[in-house]
């Protein structure tokens, strides 16, 4: 509305945020929260296994060091940058919501940032002083203790992030109390945290095993021991992860109900939710099978055997993240701002006087027979483009054709009849914000899209049209009408 609309017409805008966020979560969980305790444990084991004269077993220690090196390199490059990328992509695609959230949670995020800085500094110290610490037993023990400390720290960071996420899903609270506490008391906060912790541990373990198969050659001294340790780690956490997944799975519809006032009626959510029923036992049993197998016959384990459960385990987490996203629709900020970035409380005004009247960027402020298509495009950009493309993923033409028959010419009147009620049956969508003329302009534009297959460029390439009826010289009249009424 008040921001130039960045729009990816091929990929779908939500997809960009989702990809970056999921990669970040993978790295954070699998290579930090779940991986560092695993590494600290193995480092400690090296000291225990060493002969009386040695500080640690050098070969073993080097193997663990190389594993940590991979985690270090990935977390400080892709991990850190996807963390920043979440901000960047959210600022591009959802500027009004992220702008509002930062105003309220500036302090929380500032604290979060401080922990982030600390975490990065600690990871650097842990990894970069590793070799130096091998010179004396005292230094080595201090180094290991540091590893444990770092593990706890990463876990706390995760707790805070989960709370911020939790807040953004929780509605009413935004309007009542703008405090982060409600993030912690959110009904799915604890189930989520309880789920993420062991799952991160499993991920860390599988990933660590994968690295063992890569770094310890088949005839090396420690390969079997390292693999068996990985198996022990996984077998220890997998049952907890399974139990936690089931609890989380059960808690989810509850949260949906609280958030949406309407029921868990949406198709897409139901599909994903059903998928979970297969994914949960599937991924967990793969991990368990691998664990037991490795435990019994470590010699026969090959890289690909670990790779498959590793991918499955990351997929497991990925699907959960996807489902979690649904809980937020149709709001970006529960009860306050819809996913189309319009505030709920401004709807009566838009409905009465029109959405374009108040748009900063649009080809015109009023729909006329001549500008119907261009204003229709503006309406689409403002009210549908955050979730729909014209012809790409989740395209608007496709969703209507699915309703009215693929390939059949769309009937403008049916389209126009559907839109004002769409949020009733499809509760993941916000209500249509505009007035009747804008509705018909939108319907005409959608029909036009079906006929021409035209695509829609976002502000990043096409630039913006400054709404001639709602800027600069019109600021004064706007202020006047406010006073005269």
């Amino acid at each position, binding site marked *: 509305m008040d921001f130039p609309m960045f729009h990816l017409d091929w990929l779908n805008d939500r997809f960009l945020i989702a990809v970056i966020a999921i990669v970040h979560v993978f790295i954070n969980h699998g290579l930090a929260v779940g991986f560092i305790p695993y590494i600290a444990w193995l480092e400690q084991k090296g000291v225990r296994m060493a002969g009386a004269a040695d500080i640690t077993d050098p070969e073993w220690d080097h193997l663990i060091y190389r594993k940590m090196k991979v985690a270090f390199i990935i977390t400080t490059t892709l991990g850190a*940058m996807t963390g920043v990328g979440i901000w960047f992509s959210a600022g591009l695609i959802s500027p009004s919501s992220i*702008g509002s959230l930062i105003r309220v949670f500036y302090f929380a995020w500032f604290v979060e940032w401080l922990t982030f800085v600390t975490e990065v500094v600690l990871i650097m110290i842990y990894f970069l002083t590793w070799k130096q610490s091998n010179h004396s037993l005292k230094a080595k023990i201090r180094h290991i203790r540091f590893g444990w400390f770092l593990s706890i720290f990463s876990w706390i960071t995760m707790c805070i992030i989960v709370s911020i996420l939790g807040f953004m899903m929780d509605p009413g609270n935004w309007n009542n109390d703008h405090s982060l506490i409600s993030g912690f008391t959110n009904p799915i906060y604890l189930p989520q945290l309880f789920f993420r912790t062991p799952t991160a541990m499993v991920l860390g373990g599988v990933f660590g095993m994968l690295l063992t198969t890569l770094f310890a050659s088949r005839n090396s001294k420690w390969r079997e021991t390292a693999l068996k340790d990985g198996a022990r780690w996984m077998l220890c956490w997998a049952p907890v992860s399974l139990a936690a997944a089931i609890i989380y799975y059960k808690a989810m519809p509850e949260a949906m109900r609280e958030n949406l006032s309407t029921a868990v009626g949406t198709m897409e959510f139901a599909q994903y939710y059903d998928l979970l029923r297969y994914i949960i036992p599937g991924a967990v049993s793969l991990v368990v099978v691998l664990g037991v197998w490795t435990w019994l016959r470590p010699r026969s384990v090959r890289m690909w055997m670990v790779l498959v459960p590793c991918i499955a385990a990351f997929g497991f987490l990925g699907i959960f993240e996807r489902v979690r996203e649904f809980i937020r629709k149709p709001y970006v900020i529960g009860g306050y701002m819809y996913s189309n970035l319009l505030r709920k*409380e401004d709807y009566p005004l838009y409905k009465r006087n029109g959405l374009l009247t108040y748009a900063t960027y649009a080809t015109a402020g009023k729909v006329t027979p001549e500008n119907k298509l261009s204003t229709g495009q503006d309406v689409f950009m403002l009210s549908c483009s955050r979730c729909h493309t014209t012809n790409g993923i989740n395209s608007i033409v496709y969703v209507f054709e699915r309703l009215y028959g693929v390939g059949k010419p769309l009937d403008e009147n049916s389209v126009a009849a559907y839109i004002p009620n769409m949020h009733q049956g499809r509760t993941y969508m916000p209500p249509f914000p505009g007035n009747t003329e804008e509705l018909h302009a939108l319907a005409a534009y959608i029909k036009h899209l079906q006929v021409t297959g035209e695509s829609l460029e976002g502000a990043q390439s096409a630039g913006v049209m400054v709404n001639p009826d709602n*800027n600069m010289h019109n*600021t004064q009249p706007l202020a006047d009408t406010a006073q005269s*009424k």
Partner: protein
Amino acid sequence: MNHMLTLLQSVTPVPRDIPLPLPLPEWLLVVLLVISFLAHILFVNLMLGGSLLTLWAQVKGLKDKAYDTLAYEIAKTITVNKSLAVVLGVAPLLSINVLYTVYFYSANALTGLMWISIIPLVTAAFLLTYLHKYAWHKLEEHKGLHIAILGLAVLIFLFIPLIFLTNINLMLFPEKWGTVKGFVSALALPNVFPRYLHFLCASLAITGLFLFWYFGRRRYAFETRFETISLYHIRKRMYSLTLGASLFQFVLGPLVLITLPSKGIQWNLIVVILSGAAAALPAMYWMWQGISGKPEDIGKNFGKVITAMSLTVLLMASGRHVYRSNALAPHKKLMAEKTKAFEKLSAEARAQPAPEENATAAAKDIPHAAGKAVFQTNCASCHKKDGRLVGPPVTEMVSIYHNDLPGLEAWIRKPGKKREDYPQMPGFPQLSGQEMTALTGYILSVK
């Protein structure tokens, strides 16, 4: 008001601001922004300057082995500095987001593809610097390839600041937003390149001072690492670099000032900038003394140099902010007015919603009015009286359910799947008992 109107041309967008109060007093946010930005940019400078110097030393090292060692030693600092540069970047990002929400996000969106490319580009550059560092001994025999890896990283590092500067520049000029089409056209706005060069020079100057300190630290065993060159030799080179770069800034600085659009240039800006430049003068003098004096005295005034240069940097960063707030003040005021006016209109509309929402209440007397209203809001998007819309026509419903009210209710609450070529109908468990009775009554009354 009038002079503002003439200042801003008629195509200038005046968006509404986020209608929520700032989380902290504005001055405090400004202080946080300026300070945290300085910390961030310091490490960015060291990362960029460090990688440029590593490249230089490594190329020189092809002939003189000592420089190869120097390159390796500098390379070790890059990977640490780059991590700090990233994490320290988040705080100023947060602060600029709250202070300049509309300006910053608008500029981001208008250059969106390049802006988001920062993420993969920086990731790639970081991975290359690790590759360069950890493959140092493995690639001993393939120096060409090894240098090329660093060269690529340096090219990316050189490009990234251009993206940031383009954004930071574009956000100052709302009057240009309507004319910009993508990154390249925003890059072409005046002032981007002079500022870019100004920044590069600063990176070299700051890295020179950093390495002067780094190699001279007491804990750094210089002699065991370098056999053929002396600490004095390196330190002298580093001072010369900083001095040369600072001198050059006296050419670039005025150029930046001249190319700045005049709208934000006021006396407060000139005073701050000139004080900053003045603070650099004694530092430059002390460095010159170090370079031309006795070898053992080269580090004598280092503390003073750092103090004076820090002052310069602080003043320049404040100058940046002063320009920004001067340049945007009139526009910010317009935006605040517009936001306020809109909030008022919105509140009024909330108090008196559009008439059609009351229409249902008014039509109470017509039979089945309530049921019809429920149908209109929930079902009309997919069902009409005759003929297929999304689902079957109402007449078909009547023919199936005229004797089976519970069946109809059950279907509405939790629809099944019957017709092959129809999509799935969503369920309506949220309808109250009263609404359901009215709805089914209406449906079955249709003839």
